[in-house]
């Protein structure tokens, strides 16, 4: 075992999961992807993987919802319908969709499926704070939803300044900073320290030594949540990275589930699912 100091790692090392440390995955996808082959693209395979890893809840946005607007989120609706005890979806906001009013109505009509918002500024060509998204943010703020942003350091569409503008505009929704403004680690930590409703998320942070160490040196583990990008990256790789990074087991629990519980417990759907 690569970290003899961690009692918690013994569970994951021996069993691939921990009864005392379930996982909430705040950043996942689904469906095949144009750019890469991935084995776990169906809801069935992803949920089986979740069960192997002790992931109690995954909030996802399917590749089809992100890149095939013509499907009108049908595959995400179907997946959550099949696995309501394990899955919920972020509603994908895409400024390219012609009929935004119908999109908004769909979001509002299915609170059993869509528990948050997601957008990808760099991919869609719309800034996080583009006015087309304002009605969605207003709704999310009213309902205190999580909003997962794809972020990347230096990006004019979803970089630090766009995240900060959104945090200044809205105080009730929870901003999940996907990829933690990859590369601008200290700025990401500053955002988490400055705004109570901003949390950093770890997908693509796990590819080298250093970034998570910087984040933990600048902000509390209580402001960091876990994500996998499933079906892209393996849950166990992320878990292994957390146990290689110097921190306490309590920090790891914060990241893997305690912060998620704190963020989501205000919602009846979560309390029913978690309890």
């Amino acid at each position, binding site marked *: 075992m690569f970290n003899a100091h961690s009692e918690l790692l013994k569970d*994951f090392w021996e069993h*691939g999961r921990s009864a005392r440390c379930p996982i909430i995955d705040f950043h996942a996808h689904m469906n095949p992807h144009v*750019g890469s*082959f*991935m084995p776990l693209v169906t809801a069935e395979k992803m949920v089986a993987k979740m069960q192997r*890893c002790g992931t109690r809840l995954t909030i996802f946005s399917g590749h089809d919802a992100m890149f095939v607007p013509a499907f009108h989120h049908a595959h995400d609706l179907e997946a959550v319908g099949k696995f309501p005890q394990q899955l919920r979806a972020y509603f994908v906001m895409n400024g390219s969709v012609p009929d935004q009013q119908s999109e908004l109505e769909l979001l509002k009509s299915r609170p059993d499926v869509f528990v948050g918002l997601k957008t990808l500024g760099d991919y869609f060509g719309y800034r996080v704070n583009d006015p087309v998204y304002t009605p969605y943010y207003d709704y999310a703020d009213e309902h205190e939803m999580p909003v997962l942003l794809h972020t990347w350091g230096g990006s004019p569409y979803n970089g630090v300044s766009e995240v900060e503008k959104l945090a200044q505009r809205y105080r009730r929704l929870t901003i999940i900073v996907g990829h933690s403004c990859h590369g601008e680690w200290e700025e990401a930590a500053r955002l988490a320290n400055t705004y109570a409703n901003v949390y950093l998320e770890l997908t693509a942070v796990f590819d080298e*030594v250093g970034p998570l160490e910087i984040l933990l040196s600048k902000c509390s583990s209580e402001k960091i949540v876990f994500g996998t990008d499933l079906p*892209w*990256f393996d849950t166990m790789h992320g878990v292994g990275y*957390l146990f290689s990074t110097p921190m306490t087991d309590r920090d790891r629990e914060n990241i893997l589930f305690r912060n998620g519980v704190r963020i989501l417990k205000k919602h009846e759907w979560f309390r029913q699912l978690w309890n």
Partner: protein
Amino acid sequence: MNFFDANVIYGIPSQKRLYPVIPDRAALQRKLKEFGIQKAIVHREEQFFAHPHTANQMLAEDLRDAPELFGLWTLLPPHCHEMTEPEDMLAEMRKNRIVGWQFFPQQNGYIFHWRVLKVWFEMAEKHRLPLFINFSFVTEHDLLDVLDRYPNLTVILRNASVWPPDRVIRPFLTEFPRTHLELSNYLTADGVDALVACGYRDRLLYSSGFQTAHVGGPMMLVKQAAIGDVDQQQIAAGNLERILGEINYV
């Protein structure tokens, strides 16, 4: 489970890095013991930043009395006579516990082409010396051209990024029977399981990429892959033991 790491880096880089540096062999050995890694193939940061001959000799000096460590040398084309000559290479490698070669053609200012490196490729094919090819430094097209001419080369591939690489990697594994994938940059969810199911168990090597990456991610990937204990152990150490056992230094 025993781990034989196919890719460990140490030494002092000459450019800014985020990771804490493991400066010398003693510090590296302490770390590997802490991680529970029994053996490792290692190379120094200086083999990328400095003249290959200078840095290769630094590594050789480090490995002299470290039986759990094996080294890679960075190669140049032989035409400028800057490093160990081909007729002396095998003996020098055996003497210095060197088990393979790596290439940085752009950084070292040469062309990765069979006409340029044919002396080395012929030697590698004949003596089953592994080539450690990192697609961050050697292009996939260039390697395909070389393997078309030397299809029995023993090659250890490292994908260039963490994004799922199967559409690039699997054709190499399928077309060339002595190509392998080391897993330090392979994070694909259940990707190891899928590769084993496709018959590539003997072609996968546990690898961390430490000191640039953490050892725990790839270790957990192998340990928790749903492939059975025997297959896990093959990937963790057995396949690399077999490859090194096939090297013929004479």
